[in-house]
């Protein structure tokens, strides 16, 4: 499991992380994908 909180203006990283985790996450040993929560970076 990896948990990453991103802000609205970091949306591009959120989308990338989401896509990669869904595609490669299991192979890299993650059992779950990113959780999103709005935070002020």
């Amino acid at each position, binding site marked *: 499991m990896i948990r990453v909180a991103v802000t609205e203006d970091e949306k591009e*990283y959120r989308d990338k992380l989401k896509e990669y985790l869904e595609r490669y996450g299991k192979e890299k040993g993650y059992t779950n994908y990113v959780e999103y929560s709005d935070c002020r970076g």
Partner: protein
Amino acid sequence: MLNIAIVEDEKSCSDIIKKYIDRFQDIYGESFRCSVFSNGLEFIDEYRPVYDIIFMDIKMPLMDGMETARRLREADTETALIFVTNMARYAIQGYEVQALDFILKPVKYDEFEMKLKKAVKYCLGHRDDMIAIEAKDMICRISVREIMYVEVMDHSLLYHTPDRIYESYGQLKALEDKLIPYHFARCGKSYLVNLKYVSEVTAGSILVGNDKIPLSRRKRKEFLQALADYMGGGF
């Protein structure tokens, strides 16, 4: 060229091992440099992590092979260790010191060849992942995969691994250049993090193993980019 150490008190046995190593070189075209030590104490006393493969007897005067191996692992977690012994019951305890294998005496060439092949394969697979750390009282060799993060503290670098912390002198910038290809990223002025150990990123910190590390505002986007590249990139 691979460096081999033979730690053996019986000269007849170390001679046989050397002869078998020469035979292996002739057959497979590998190149080895051999050093022989007649007991554990002599070997470990001024140990430097330069050996790729170590053949170690267990029953030796002054310091036995198992104790020597324990002390060896404090300085070198990666070298391929093979016990050569007639004490099978002790050899199977080799897992305690991450021994790669053991060979029973009297040593036969066929078995020796098989174990040396295994060790060579192990070494060639791990070679590029090693880093030498000049700690205060010794030089240690560890795999970069073991490093969770490196922290700067009072002009020292602290290498945090799952088992222990290694302290050395050095500059984080120089280390960063070396470790970037292994998926490390800066999360602030004083920290270099192995991305594979990151389990949480919040507004101002990241979780690496059980340690919470500050994530600077300035480095945040760069860090997220590196994390995304790691997720989507090579292993």
